[in-house]
């Protein structure tokens, strides 16, 4: 039988190719995978984002850049632009596409702003090789995971799979804890203000609902209280109106940046001291040295989703991580959100270490993530419900005393 040289050559070629593939796959034992962060690195949140990225890098260093059999590298994305000075919707859309397109990238840590998450999550969800996982350290808007506004949360998950997780609890829980604490203070009549933004309205709304449920009288009209004008020069008219209703407490759902300083000053000026008419705010007022420095802030109650840095358990991984952060970077994390960023990365790495390195499998393994309190960098168990919300729903209540935030109570939502 005469051999066909072409056939021989073909067989040889195939054999060579197969052996090459085998060799290359065996030498490929340690695959490099990328995880990324997606945060606003310009504008008001820049310091916070930098600190978060540092915390994640530190976490990776502590783990020798490894998760299971994979080498993990870290990539930073910026979802803000200079022209906007804050998170930019177009940039979020672009980053989302880039996450999907980067062939070596398997999961995303972010975002800081809930609005940005609402753009990115649906795109990652429809990734043909995915869905791709995103874990946030700071999104507190309930609509991302729970039934909230019209069409929420289903509209963020076009293919029905829940690829979004978060390590902080939601605004509705914060409002509930605040209402619970207000009742325990003996408050009976409360007036609610909001900053007219997504976040502020969300917290104010959940506070109002829960306060009514607990039998408190809510003097403000509307389901989220009254909006304050952040461009007003003073709030005399607003507080004179409120004074006539004689509330025991004022709840300010919003962010300090939106003229909160003037609001707080005028509150004390027209409504009286914070012992006579109590004042309470959500975490939009925490972590602001300018706020704490105000004499009018003394005695104000603050609530915070998750644990305050000072409340992280001592003697475990959590304390160790913070010490190392201080040692490495010469400063403490700007707020607990940055450490929660590391916690989010920890969750992702846990899923990767048990997976086969594909986005699809990491998505499956995310469902069973369970990091015990002893091993977690924030000192609480990291485990999620089927919506992607964290199970440990801790809310910290703080009081402003001697120009510092002082721990009062930890409320755990059931």
């Amino acid at each position, binding site marked *: 039988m005469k051999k066909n040289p072409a056939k021989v050559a073909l067989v040889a070629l195939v054999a060579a190719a197969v052996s090459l593939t085998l060799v290359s796959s065996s030498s490929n034992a340690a695959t490099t995978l990328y995880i990324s962060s997606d945060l606003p690195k310009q504008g008001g949140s820049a310091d916070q984002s930098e600190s978060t990225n540092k915390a994640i890098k530190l976490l990776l260093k502590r783990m020798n850049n490894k998760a299971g059999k994979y080498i993990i590298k870290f990539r930073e994305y910026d979802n803000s632009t200079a*022209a906007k000075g804050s998170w930019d919707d177009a940039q979020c859309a672009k980053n989302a596409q880039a996450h999907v397109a980067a062939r070596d990238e398997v999961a995303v840590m972010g975002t800081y702003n809930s609005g940005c998450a609402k753009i990115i999550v649906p795109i990652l969800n429809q990734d043909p090789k995915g869905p791709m996982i995103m874990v946030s350290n700071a999104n507190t808007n309930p609509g991302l995971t729970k039934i909230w506004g019209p069409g929420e949360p289903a*509209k963020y998950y076009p293919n029905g799979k829940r690829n979004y997780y978060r390590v902080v609890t939601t605004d509705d829980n914060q409002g509930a804890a605040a209402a619970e604490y207000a009742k325990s203070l003996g408050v009976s009549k409360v007036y609610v203000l909001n900053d007219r933004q997504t976040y502020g309205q969300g917290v104010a709304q959940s506070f109002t609902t829960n306060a009514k449920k607990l039998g408190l009288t809510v003097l403000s009209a509307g389901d989220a209280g009254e909006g304050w004008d952040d461009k007003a020069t003073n709030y005399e008219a607003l507080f004179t109106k409120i004074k006539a209703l004689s509330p025991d407490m004022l709840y300010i759902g919003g962010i300090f940046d939106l003229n909160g300083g003037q609001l707080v000053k005028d509150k004390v000026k027209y409504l009286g001291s914070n012992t006579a008419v109590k004042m309470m705010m959500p975490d939009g007022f925490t972590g602001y040295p300018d706020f704490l420095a105000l004499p009018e802030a003394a005695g104000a109650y603050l609530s915070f989703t998750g644990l305050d840095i000072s409340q992280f358990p001592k003697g475990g991984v959590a304390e160790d991580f913070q010490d190392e952060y201080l040692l490495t970077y010469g400063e403490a994390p700007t707020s607990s959100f940055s450490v929660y960023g590391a916690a989010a990365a920890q969750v992702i790495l846990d899923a990767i270490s048990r997976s086969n390195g594909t986005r699809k499998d990491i998505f499956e393994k995310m469902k069973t993530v369970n990091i015990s309190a002893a091993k977690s960098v924030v000192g609480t168990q990291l485990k999620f419900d089927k919506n992607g919300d964290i199970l440990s729903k801790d809310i910290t209540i703080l009081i402003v005393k001697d120009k510092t935030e002082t721990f009062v109570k930890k409320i755990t939502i059931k």
Partner: protein
Amino acid sequence: MAKTIAPNNVAKSNRKWITGYSIIGLLLFITYQFLLPWEGLPLGIYDAIYRWMPPSAINESLVYIIMALGLNIVVGYAGLLDLGYVAFWAIGGYCAGWFMSEFFYFLNINFLGSVPAEAPGIHINFWMVLLIGGFVCAVFGILIGAPTLRLKSDYLALVTLGFGEIIPQVFFNGENFFGYNISNGTKGIVGVDSIPVGVKNLGPFDFGWKLLIFLLLTAVMVFISLRLRRGRLGRAWLAIREDELAASMMGVPLMRTKLSAYAVGAFAGGLGGVAFATHVNGVYAERFNFTISIFLLAMVVLGGMGNVWGVILGAFILSWVNGNGLTAFGQLYNEQFGTEIDFASFTFLLFGLVLIFMMLFKREGLLPESRLKLMLHEDELDQIDASSKSGDK
């Protein structure tokens, strides 16, 4: 200064560009639609494209170009300084939000929309919403223009500035607009219907198709700009720009001409607004702030006021630097030298320096309009060749 400048570029052919534009467009389409998803593409090229010019960055640039072309008609052609152009972007965007999403969830209107008929909300076909957005903006352009056009220069700029602040504020606080929710406030309208292109509805990864659509819209704006400029209206705009009093003495109806500049400019804002809403799949009130108006104005000035190609170049460069270029350069630099410099935070420093140097050395922009160049260098030209501008004025 060159003596060979054509005194009046209006007379140049207005059609030649179509061939060049189509070739560039086709190349881009092939690159992003077929080359990029191709598995055989070397990883180096793939990474380079994604680093320097990812598909969504180019689509975003095109939206900026559409806007800048619209603003160019108002500022570049008619010489009416507009500091509130972002308002039209907002109105266009919300038209998409209203007519192409589940925002009005209590209604169920579906007119050739790209979603199942039983979906709640108003779902009108993208191509019609484009027109609706354009015309709604044009109407607003006229409404705003009418009472303000008696004003001149600085005063007009102040009024447009006010307009540019008010409209976005209305949307910003639009959750309770006399008892009605018109914009969802800062929560924004999330989720806009996909674009139907006949064979299918475009998903989030069909960049190539979106690119083609955005290129088409840009082409429409270029066409409108070039044709209008050549015609009676365009010549009237230029006359007003150069000397309003003289123009009115020569019988140019000031009011009507200025209003049409606003209307056409606003129309582009509407097109761009609708296109942008489909690009980011939503409408967010926070985007529409003053800096965006200034940013658009900078694009027009940098590129060359009045020159369509200059404006396109200016818009492309600025949006690229802002969104992608500087970050990509920073990554490359940091990888090369092991530094950790945050280049993106120097964007404004760079913009500021560029504007200063432009004003010092090239006031007429990167690709100047020949007519404007003549004006800005009038005295130099007088000395060199007095006869070259005699045909112009």
